[in-house]
């Protein structure tokens, strides 16, 4: 038999916007549920190293799922009739439906990039449910810097351009093997999906006016961002932390926008202390 990784993947169906949607999820470990949310235009493979880290899985049941329209999760039936645009309400509904389907009790939710944004919404609105939220590369407000229409048009390859856009977000110090694995996920996204995700990340999901309302005594907030992140910059992370009283902000030196997949060994040195602190609280 091969040396199997500890990750187990399964499919199930849950309702998304009133329609049945086949969802793919992976998990490993036992203990406190840790729900992981991937970046815009990618999928849950980004968390494979975390799922295989015994220092994490001995304390946490790590669960990473592909959002509908992403990875091995289907889009809902009839998806061809509508342009995909992720909204704040839909994103929150998906995460809460997933947690309900899994019957999770007081989970930690950790999201990266747009996932790092939505966890701030959840920290405010679901503070009594989540044990803590971890926002990787997650600021409460960003400034767009390129036109989204480039991402979905017939004369530009959507996968190639998505990868080429976000390759700027990987730190130059990150290992080439993991840089290109991270970008490979982007090359494989469905047509228009990265663009539709950025609708939430750049436009619909702004949260800076409400982030001061988060009660970190009820739901602790951890912000961790990479030095080389060009969208959720260290400055925007610090500004977000300043608006969320009691939050913890860490700038990861030599890291980009995809810490869990672009440099997993370095990321482990940053995330393990956070997870230990949450478990010990």
């Amino acid at each position, binding site marked *: 038999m091969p040396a199997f990784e500890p990750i187990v993947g399964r499919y199930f169906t849950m309702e998304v916007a009133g329609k049945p949607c086949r969802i793919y999820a992976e998990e490993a470990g036992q203990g406190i549920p840790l729900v992981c949310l991937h970046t815009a235009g990618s999928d849950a493979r980004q968390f494979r190293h975390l799922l295989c880290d015994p220092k994490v899985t001995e304390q946490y049941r790590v669960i990473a799922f592909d959002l509908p329209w992403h990875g091995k999760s289907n889009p809902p039936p009839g998806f061809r009739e509508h342009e995909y645009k992720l909204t704040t309400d839909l994103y929150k509904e998906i995460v809460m439906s997933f947690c309900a389907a899994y019957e999770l009790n007081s989970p930690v939710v950790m999201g990266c990039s747009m996932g790092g944004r939505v966890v701030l919404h959840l920290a405010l609105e679901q503070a009594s449910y989540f044990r803590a939220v971890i926002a990787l590369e997650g600021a409460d407000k960003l400034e767009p810097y390129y036109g989204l229409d480039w991402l979905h048009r017939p*004369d530009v390859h959507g996968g*190639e*351009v998505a990868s*080429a*856009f976000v*390759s700027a977000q990987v730190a130059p110090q990150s290992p080439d093997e993991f840089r290109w694995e991270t970008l490979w996920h982007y090359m494989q996204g469905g047509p228009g999906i990265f663009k539709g995700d950025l609708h939430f990340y750049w436009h619909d999901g702004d949260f800076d006016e409400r982030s001061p309302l988060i009660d970190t005594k009820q739901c602790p907030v951890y912000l961790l961002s990479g030095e*080389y992140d*060009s969208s959720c910059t260290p400055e925007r992370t610090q500004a977000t932390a300043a608006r969320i009283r009691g939050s913890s902000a860490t700038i990861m030196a030599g890291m980009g926008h995809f810490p869990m997949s672009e440099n997993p060994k370095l990321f482990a040195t940053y995330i393990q202390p956070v997870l230990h602190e949450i478990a010990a609280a």
Partner: protein
Amino acid sequence: MLEDLQARVNANTALVRRGRWVSLTFLFGADDEDYLIEIDKGQVLAVAPRRLPTEVGIFSIRAAHATWMEHWQRFPRRDYHDIWSMLPKDLARLDGDLLPLIQNLQYFKEVIASPRDQGAQ
């Protein structure tokens, strides 16, 4: 400042293969100096200073000389490490018809970064 770009690109067979659909001339600017970089099927045919106002590229990318020097460091400082991280910080400027650039963005990023491993001069 671009003395070795042609040789470095053309010696990189994987890069030339990825650019095999690219045949055009684009303009590279550093401070007030403009260079025209002529490409045929992914190979760099010529890198030449711009001599006449009528010599243009299909698109142009410009930055300060010092910005390019930092871009070509082995590990550039943040914001300088990639064209797409230079744009939001106003460290670089694009003009012209961007379609061929966007269609082959990773190729052009690597062509422009090709002096990198020698470091800033």
